[in-house]
């Protein structure tokens, strides 16, 4: 395993963009890569092993060192606060974290509630605003919460704003911009420095080219 680089990739939305970026960086990935249902894909020609993880878990794999490198959204890094190097902004999968709710509503005075997939980010945000709120952790379909009266506000990622609109919600405040980042385990950053530097340089070339 010492001459192989293990990369944790996020399944789903970011995956295709990440694969495209790696291809642009000159990595020869097999054509059936995207369609595979395998969780581990070896590309021996490149000396790379990919592991396909839930986006929220990528930083965890990397922190523990079972993956040397990972591609993770800034939202995940803010939420999880893992001890990893955040080396590159890959400038893909742009979206942002926002507070949203039903239009023209105020937070409930007696019991302000916020539903979110990101309890740490939400808690930190409202604490900084000097507001004490009850955080309700949900695992998906966050937009449902204000509609059916579970919470006054939600904290979630917004990419086009369509989901909010279709569910009759409006954005109240942007918290932070989110793009995907290249993250690295601290031990791998030392012991596989040559391989990681090469990856960073190749990705950097693509990123610079892409900025015009």
């Amino acid at each position, binding site marked *: *395993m*010492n001459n192989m680089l293990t990369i944790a990739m996020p399944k789903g939305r970011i995956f295709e963009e990440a694969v495209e970026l790696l291809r642009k960086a000159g990595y020869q990935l097999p054509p059936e890569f995207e369609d595979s249902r395998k969780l581990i894909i070896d590309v021996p020609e490149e000396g790379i092993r990919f592991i396909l993880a839930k986006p929220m878990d990528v930083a965890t794999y*990397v*922190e*523990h*060192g*079972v993956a040397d490198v990972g591609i993770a959204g800034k939202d995940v890094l803010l939420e999880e*606060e893992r*001890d*990893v*190097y*955040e*080396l*590159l*902004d890959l400038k893909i999968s742009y979206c942002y974290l926002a507070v949203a709710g039903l239009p023209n509503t105020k937070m409930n005075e007696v019991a302000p509630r916020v539903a979110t997939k990101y309890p740490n980010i939400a808690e930190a945000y409202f604490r900084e605003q000097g507001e004490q709120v009850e955080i309700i952790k949900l695992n998906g379909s966050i937009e449902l919460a204000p509609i059916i009266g579970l919470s006054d506000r939600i904290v979630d990622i917004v990419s086009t704003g369509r989901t909010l609109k279709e569910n009759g919600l409006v954005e109240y405040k942007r918290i932070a911009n989110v793009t995907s*980042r290249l993250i690295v*385990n*601290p*031990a*791998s950053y*030392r*012991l596989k*420095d040559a391989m990681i530097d090469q990856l960073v340089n190749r990705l950097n070339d693509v990123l610079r080219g892409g900025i015009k």
Partner: protein
Amino acid sequence: MSRLFMFEKPLGMRDTLPELYEKKHLVRSRVAETLKLWGYQFMETPTLEYYETVGAASAIDDAQLFKLLDKEGHTLVLRPDMTSPIARVAASKLLDEDFPVRLAYSANVFRAQQREGGRPAEFEQIGVECLNEDTVSCDGEIVALLISSLKKAGLTNFQVSVGHVGFAQELFLQILGTNERATALRKFLVEKNYVGYREHVNSLQLSSIDKQRLIKLLQLRGGEEVLEGAFEIIENGKGKKAIIELEELWNVIQDYGVEEYVKFDFSIVSHMSYYSGIVFEAYAGNVGFPLGNGGRYSLIEKFGKKASATGFAIRVDMLLEALGDLSLENDTHCIFFSQERRKEAFQLGQKMHKQGKKAVLQEISGVKNLDAFTKRFAGTTFLIGGHGDE
């Protein structure tokens, strides 16, 4: 709070069962042997210390300290590290005579874990402190001793990354002017957030040359050659002194012949605020977390004595993990006896013990599952029934 199961332990506290104990003991004694050979003397300090003294000096995050109250109402802490207690003893007792003191310890330290509560909150550190000695030779000795200890423990694939807290600090001050602004930028390095660091640098009102100098800091890692790169981005003063120290360190390490294990990394800035000079971290191939770290510190001053010191600490649990499968030979023999041959069995046992062989004495009627029990031993002797027939 939910009702505890009778077998439960507080979060993060672990039992060490015999097999693991033996492995830990083996690794600990290999490292300890090396430390002793280099003339470091072992010492112990109490498990409990005052929060106001050692607790405050330790630089471990307040939320990670285990605190309790004594009868007088003083807040106590379970020691979160060994460097601060040793600095306390050093300032009050050990440094009365003005010469270098070399100390070693192996002890459990306590740090409450906020994330994933099952992570160990009590773990063993083995390490050294060289007090009242401020030469770069001594910094080199500590790095070489760390390498030598890890090798002796059986580790092959590892690396020590060396940096200097003075360099980044001075670079930031030269360019940014104030401590406040330097601290704001330093925070990104502590968090290992290079993206945020670059964004922050680009958002500042600085000349493009200065911006490049700050960004270049992130690339200063590798062998001897990075020292030259470091010279290019720093002006005279303390920053240059830091590089000269690292250059000298490289020479010392070469003289020790361990340079293959050492690389420079100028972006290492410890979250431990008491470090004042050369700092380092050790990493092994198959463990994602650092095995150990150390560096030069000014901590003793907090306890009222001006003395520079340097040292390192190895986390025994991480080292064990890095070593992987340590198969220990089972060399314990079992002598089963029946009552009528008890004395004979005891004599045989004594004989074996005198020869330094491990032997268990077990009356045969006391064992219910004889087959399973026998399998636990390297060999067995049965002294049962009448004399002579075995």
